[in-house]
């Protein structure tokens, strides 16, 4: 679908200028929010309003594979100068790859860029100059803010001084209305929101054509987000094509003229933002085809939540700045789902419960006793296991055998007098492997030889071997095929029924509604919803993920 040329409602109407592009704005409305205090002062960079070098850039049928992963699949998007484009999608939807194609860091396997109908290379063309502010900031930590702002720009090897760099940087910061940053201080000494603004300022400063902002609000406070909106509008009015990449629509909704939604490497929608609301976009972003499953534990869903032994209790846990005051209980035999859009603090919650991150406040009780989860080792001893999303780097040692992976966290259990006993290893691992449906024959094969689904089974089996009672499963089924998913769900309920408990985060709502006894939702670091049994519906989970009401 091609973007419509219609203008979004609420945006300025063309005042007789070229069609399809907002004309110069009356300075009484927007310009004043952009530059409070001194409207009309012509101190901003960029071409004069109304003179962009081109009007329409079409990214046509771009595809890109990384190994077996189809990161982009026949994606077509159109960008216009003087407009703001939202690029939305879940993690893994292809947003990052598309950014890198746009700014020339990744060469697509197929597809092309046409600027005003002329084929143009993505990299190295003066007609296509992209400046990018990355989410994973590209600031050099020990260099001063000033040196970072001019980094890579000073082509001349002439003599400069630190103070002249500071002067240039102060000018840049002033121009972009950042007045609370000391350009002399190292970047590292600034808190994350400030660092993100510095990253953004650097990108703002370096473009007059295409500006790509990758999750620009992920670390910004509301004031920072307002500041950013002002700068975005300013650049748009200067004829820049602004591309905002995000998974959170709410904060950028009102600045976007067009929205493209990516899912699984495909552009599933691309249209004027006036026809979209948050609910519709969220559905587009998340909506995978419904798994052809009946609820694995449909009967249990309808029971009232049972009074069970609480095996894990989290009291007012905060992990600044990701998570604030989260409390939850996990009972024996229970699968508790966690719903949340990407980056709402769920990762910090899981990492903290696994001892890999320190909480700033709050307590964790395992089996009624307060525990200090200072390290994963402590967490494992407390009976907690973690099945992470990225099995390849966090879950498994791929080069080692299944045997070694299975027994690593519990070497004490398979040792005699401190020496690892191969017989005891096999004996301890066998039931765990059988319970997950792993063939005994793979025991001495390298973990890398297994399929993704089987690798994830090894990670889970590892915690059976370690005799963990509480499993933290952080989106473990991403990229796992439907069949293996079904087996996993069945195993999770069996594990819980056998006296275990599972805390299960999934980016896929259908997984949550399928397998969970209860679901809580997290939005911006706080719990926004809690539901049990038959209350667990797509709609309610989604509402909670978007900020909720309950």
């Amino acid at each position, binding site marked *: 679908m091609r973007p419509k040329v219609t203008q979004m409602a609420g945006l300025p109407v063309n005042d007789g200028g070229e069609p399809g592009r907002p004309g110069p704005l009356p300075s009484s409305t927007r310009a004043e929010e952009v530059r409070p205090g001194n409207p009309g002062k012509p101190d901003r960079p960029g071409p004069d309003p109304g003179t962009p070098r081109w009007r329409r850039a079409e990214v046509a049928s771009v595809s890109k594979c990384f190994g077996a992963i189809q990161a982009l699949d026949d994606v077509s998007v159109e960008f216009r100068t003087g407009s703001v484009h939202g690029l939305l999608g879940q993690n893994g939807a292809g947003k990052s790859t598309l950014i890198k194609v746009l700014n020339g860091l990744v060469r697509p396997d197929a597809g092309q860029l046409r600027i005003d109908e002329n084929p143009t290379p993505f990299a190295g063309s003066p007609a296509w100059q992209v400046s990018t502010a990355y989410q994973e900031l590209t600031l*050099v930590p020990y260099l001063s803010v000033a040196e970072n702002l001019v980094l890579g720009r000073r082509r001349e090897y002439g003599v400069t001084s630190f103070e002249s760099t500071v002067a240039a940087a102060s000018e840049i910061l002033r121009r972009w209305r950042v007045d609370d940053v000391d350009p002399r201080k190292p970047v590292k000494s600034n808190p994350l929101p400030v660092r993100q603004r510095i990253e953004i300022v*650097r990108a703002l400063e370096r473009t007059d054509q295409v500006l790509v902002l990758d999750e620009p609000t992920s670390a910004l406070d509301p004031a920072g987000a307002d500041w950013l909106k002002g700068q975005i509008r300013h650049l748009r009015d200067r004829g820049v094509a602004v591309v905002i990449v995000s998974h959170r629509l709410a904060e950028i909704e009102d600045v976007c003229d067009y929205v493209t939604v990516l899912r699984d490497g495909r552009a599933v929608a691309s249209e004027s933002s006036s026809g979209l609301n948050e609910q519709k976009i969220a559905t587009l972003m998340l909506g995978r085809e419904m798994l052809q499953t009946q609820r694995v534990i449909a009967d249990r869903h309808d029971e009232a939540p049972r009074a069970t032994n609480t095996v894990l209790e989290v009291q007012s846990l905060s992990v600044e700045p990701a998570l604030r005051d989260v409390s939850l209980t996990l009972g024996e035999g229970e699968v508790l789902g966690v719903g949340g859009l990407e980056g709402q603090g*769920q990762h910090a919650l899981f990492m903290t419960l696994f001892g890999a991150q320190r909480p700033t406040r709050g307590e964790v009780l395992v089996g009624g006793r307060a525990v200090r989860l200072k390290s994963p080792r402590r967490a494992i001893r407390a009976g907690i296991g973690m099945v992470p999303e990225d099995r390849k780097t966090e879950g498994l040692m791929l080069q080692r055998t299944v045997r070694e992976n299975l027994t690593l966290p519990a070497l004490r259990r398979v040792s005699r007098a401190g020496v690892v006993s191969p017989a005891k290893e096999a004996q301890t691992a066998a039931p765990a492997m059988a319970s997950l449906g792993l063939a005994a024959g793979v025991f001495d094969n390298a973990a890398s030889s297994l399929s993704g689904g089987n690798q994830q089974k090894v990670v889970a089996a590892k915690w059976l071997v370690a005799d963990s009672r509480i499993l933290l499963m952080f989106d473990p089924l991403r990229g796992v095929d439907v069949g293996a998913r079904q087996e996993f769900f069945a195993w999770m309920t069996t594990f819980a029924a056998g006296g275990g408990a599972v805390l299960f985060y999934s980016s896929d709502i259908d997984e949550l509604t399928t397998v969970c006894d209860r679901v809580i939702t997290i939005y911006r670091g706080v719990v926004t919803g809690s539901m049990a049994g038959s209350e667990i519906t797509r709609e309610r989970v989604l509402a909670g993920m978007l900020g909720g009401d309950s």
Partner: protein
Amino acid sequence: MSQETATAVRVGERGAAVRSFASRKVGFLASAAVLVAFFAINASISEAVLTTYGFSSFVNAGATVALAAAGLSVVVMAGGLDLSVAAVVALVNVVVATRMQDTSASMMWVSLLAVGIGVAAGALNGVLVTTTGLPSVIVTLATFFIWGGAALLVLDSPGGSVPFDFADLLTGVRGGVPNAVLLLLGLCVLWLLLSRTSLRVNILALGGDRAAARANGVPVAGTEVAAFAIAGFCYGLAGLFLSALTVSGTPNLGADFTLNAFAAVVVGGTQFGGGRGTPVSGLIGAFVLYTSYSILFTIEAPSELNYVLTGAILVVAVVVQNPRRLLVSRSAEPVSGAGG
């Protein structure tokens, strides 16, 4: 704006600049203060070090490692490590000891050749690191053997000779000032000039975060080669100075020298991992170590204690430079990928 406010603003800016200079250079100023304090202790025990002869032999003793440490600091700043220091210095040393004739023309040409060998060896390290993508430790371990072997090919056992005039040029005293001090100050001035180009920022950017440097258009490969080449330049000077000091050639300088240079870099305050530091602090670190040796010598402690003392100073220096590591338990560091 009135004249008065303008002046006030300028004074305010000056104050900010001074404060920012002090805060940026705090590590450097601290190691310089330690050097002054050590030297004062040394002088209070024995005034010999304050005599012209005593001071010049003190500076001469430390200068070779100091020059090498200055060069090594640049590589460390860029996020690398260079194990080939001793081999390059030795190669330069034996070339000088076997080639230099007692004519001023020969002294000049061989000196240029010596520095050229240093620069070439360093640049080759850099080229190998950037083209192979291997860790610099591995590459320079290899070149350590290569240059060490080359030095043995030039001169298979300690020997050779260096003209007296040349030795005097570098290690002598003119008007009460040891020539070595002028050489070291000259290197500092050279670095000050160089640090006013974008090269210094590029080197620190490369060491601080390679991916970020690349994303910002820093010429990563060129910067890395330049860092190693600057280091090689310093090794060349170190080799020249060693030749003047020992008036002979020593082909197998050995790993001791490399380790001393590394110790000097760390004591000076340039931290491994890159992104911070200055070669001047390498000079200071080397002299902090040599002053401590000098103190041990003066109190007639067994010279074997030098090693123990080096180790102790190293540990103290690193701890002082990283006070937060003492306060924050390591397990609190988030694992990679954390921060969802």
